[in-house]
């Protein structure tokens, strides 16, 4: 076989792209934009939780130094797995003994231990239930939660999605509070100014969210919610699991950048809690979003815009929204358009020359060194790849939601356009919003 035919381009014009397969899979490059959270950052959201990772040295290194950089090494321990451990029949007992050893040396009793196993444990048929049951019996005062660092299985349930669900694993059944609604699956609080929060609060409901919990007791009270809302894709499993375990209804109100979809979300919310849809309030917020976008466009003008998938969970829909308000979106950094087919087709028809760039293609290695026109980026990866200090520094929608969220992001675009950032210094920080020693 000749390799001469196998070159894999790093980008494709949207008019030429296959919505179901933007790029052929291959080797992957890792750009130095570190703002996305990983499973360590997420696990730290449980107040007082101690994380124990059982895996090979290569896998341990990244998680331990994640904790070190966020000044949280005292909440992290590990059990290293050697080649022999995989085959000598002691897989489960090694982990049990290791956890016991660590807990006996800790000098404190954490209320909850997140125990992470890795891909090789799952492939070796490790019995996680036996491990958790044994630890429960030895340490009845500690809640042990099975957690997974299993990137090999990312095409079924991603580690981030699974972690978002396991984050609630230590919750216990408690009396339901009919006036308490949970927001689940996020790694940052929802903007309190959003109309979503306003609608909930205006109708007398209290909101609970792990991102606002300061104590373990507050964390435990999350299971009082009679209903949980998720809105980012990786939060769906968390909502489903909580519904299965505690009977709390799960309402997925996907973070959208489409007015009709948002209005439909609010109608579903209001129907679920049996209140009238605040039509005028929503219209006011929608108008505010439109004005904010128009205002941003007035400032930013025809400056080319690049949008990446780490900044917003629906980069094609967000790009369409920007285009509808006159922005010159020229680049989208994403390897998939799953769930955004309608926006993709709209962009293909209306902006056929938008370039879609893979975030991981090997040929993206060079792009940061190339000369680029002055670009406004929305997202860290776009900022890095297109070499701009004018960028909106958010990940996973930045905690913004709805029309208010659109208005806030539009304001951030103005700020990014007028005030350049120190790209290198910003992008190196892991887990945007977390403490960092760097």
């Amino acid at each position, binding site marked *: 076989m000749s390799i001469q035919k196998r070159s894999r381009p790093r980008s494709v014009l949207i008019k030429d792209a296959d919505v179901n397969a933007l790029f052929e899979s291959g080797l992957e490059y890792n750009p130095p934009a570190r703002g996305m959270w990983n499973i360590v950052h997420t696990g730290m959201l449980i107040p007082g939780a101690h994380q124990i990772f059982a895996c090979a040295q*290569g896998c341990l290194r990244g998680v331990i130094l994640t904790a070190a950089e966020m000044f949280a090494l005292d909440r992290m321990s590990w059990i290293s797995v050697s080649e022999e451990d995989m085959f000598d029949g002691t897989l489960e007992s090694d982990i049990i003994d290791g956890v016991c050893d660590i807990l006996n040396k800790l000098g404190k009793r954490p209320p909850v231990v997140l125990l992470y196993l890795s891909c090789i444990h799952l*492939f070796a048929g490790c019995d996680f239930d036996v491990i958790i049951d044994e630890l429960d019996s030895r340490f009845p005062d500690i809640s042990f939660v099975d957690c997974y660092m299993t990137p090999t299985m990312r095409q079924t349930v991603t580690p981030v999605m699974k972690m978002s669900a396991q984050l609630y694993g230590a919750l216990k059944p408690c009396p339901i509070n009919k006036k308490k609604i949970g927001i689940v699956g996020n790694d940052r609080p929802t903007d309190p100014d959003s109309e979503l929060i306003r609608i909930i609060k205006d109708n007398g409901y209290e909101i609970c969210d792990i991102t606002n919990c300061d104590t373990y007791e507050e964390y435990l009270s999350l299971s009082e919610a009679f209903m949980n809302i998720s809105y980012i894709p990786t939060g769906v499993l968390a909502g489903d699991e909580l519904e299965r375990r505690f009977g709390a209804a799960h309402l997925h109100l996907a973070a959208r950048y489409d007015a009709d979809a948002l209005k439909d979300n609010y109608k579903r919310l209001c129907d679920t809690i049996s209140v009238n849809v605040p039509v005028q309030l929503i219209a006011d917020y929608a108008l505010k979003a439109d004005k904010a976008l128009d205002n941003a466009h007035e400032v930013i003008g025809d400056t080319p815009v690049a949008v990446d998938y780490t900044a917003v969970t629906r980069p094609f829909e967000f790009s369409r929204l920007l285009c509808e308000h006159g922005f010159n979106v020229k680049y989208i950094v994403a390897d998939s358009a799953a769930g955004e087919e309608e926006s993709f087709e709209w962009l293909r028809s209306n902006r056929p020359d938008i370039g879609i760039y893979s975030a991981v293609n090997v040929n993206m290695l060079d792009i940061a060194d190339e000369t680029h026109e002055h670009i406004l980026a929305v997202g860290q990866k776009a900022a890095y790849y297109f070499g701009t200090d004018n960028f909106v520094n958010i990940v996973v929608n930045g905690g913004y939601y709805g029309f208010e969220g659109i208005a806030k992001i539009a304001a951030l675009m103005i700020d990014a356009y007028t005030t350049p950032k120190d790209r290198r210094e910003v992008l190196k920080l892991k887990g945007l919003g977390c403490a960092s020693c760097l």
Partner: protein
Amino acid sequence: MKNTAKIIPCYSADTSGVCSALYELSGLTVVHDASGCNSTYSTHDEPRWYDMRSNIYISALTEIDAVMGNDEKFISDVSAAAFDRKPEFIAICGSPMPMMTGFDYDNAANEIQSRTGIATFPVYTNGTRSYIDGAADSFVNVLKLFTKPLEKVKNRVNITGLTPLDLPLGSDRLIRKWLAENDLECVCTLAMGSTLEDVKKMSSASATVVMSYSGLAAAEYLYKEYAIPYVCGVPVGDFSDILIKAVKKAAETGECIRSPFERNEDRGTVIIGESIMSLSIASAIGGADIISPLPCDEDMLGINDSTVYSEEDIEAVLGEKKPSVVVADPLYKYIIPESTRLVEIPHFAFSGRCFQKNMKDMITTGLGEYFK
């Protein structure tokens, strides 16, 4: 227990050692892994990632390909990338998952080489060993592939085992300067600040200086194949003078000097870290006992030194020795006895970026800055 740690980090793994060793040599290095190895390496183990491009990639192994043993995906992906990137060579290594599935590195390398026409070699990593192993094997592979016999040139010196995992960026320039000040010319600083063309000239040197244990196997290869003697040591502080004399002596006599270190009995100081650097520091400061938590040549160590790997064992040795001073990476602070002074020398292979801004140049300014 020997395989647990309640608080201190682990060292960089073998896969990172491979990538770090080959970073500047114009190859294409692929880690066969799902994900994680790449971001761990490029975030925590590779300070050159933002400023210097290198073809270091991950295979993005998926569950289905692992279960079905779809090695063709790996081979065709590497071949396609090679077509696009046009590397001088291809290195493949892997994480624990390929170990679990019994991935055949030799056959994969052969197949890639036959498809691409580019020299391809495997490095047998599995993510469970230290960076020393991965880097050492990588250096030897490169030497085997790219060195041919050349006429020896007097006063030309090789450096091996130089990666940013063990010495700060910029050390290559300082080492060249140090050699030049001593009338020696540097052929290649394998592998920081040198190119593959420099590697090809390494057989023309009259001596090799081994800067870390990861460079010892490469130096031994050069000795065996080209009769180039080697000396172990890092030119830190006052030890620089001892080392340069040893290098000149080795070049003159053709005999290796594995352990030029000169230490007095000093039970008050303990150094924790990579063995050759630790021994060099110990010689520079007059004396100290060594705790080596990494692979090393135990023959280089003294009877008061220890090779222990676990947090528990390191704590036990420190408890027994009761040193007044410990010289180690700052993240060892958690297990240093309370009354002991910790002289912090950041080691990138241990604490990664955490203290990068505090890393000082030891080769030109000596150790005074750290011991203030």
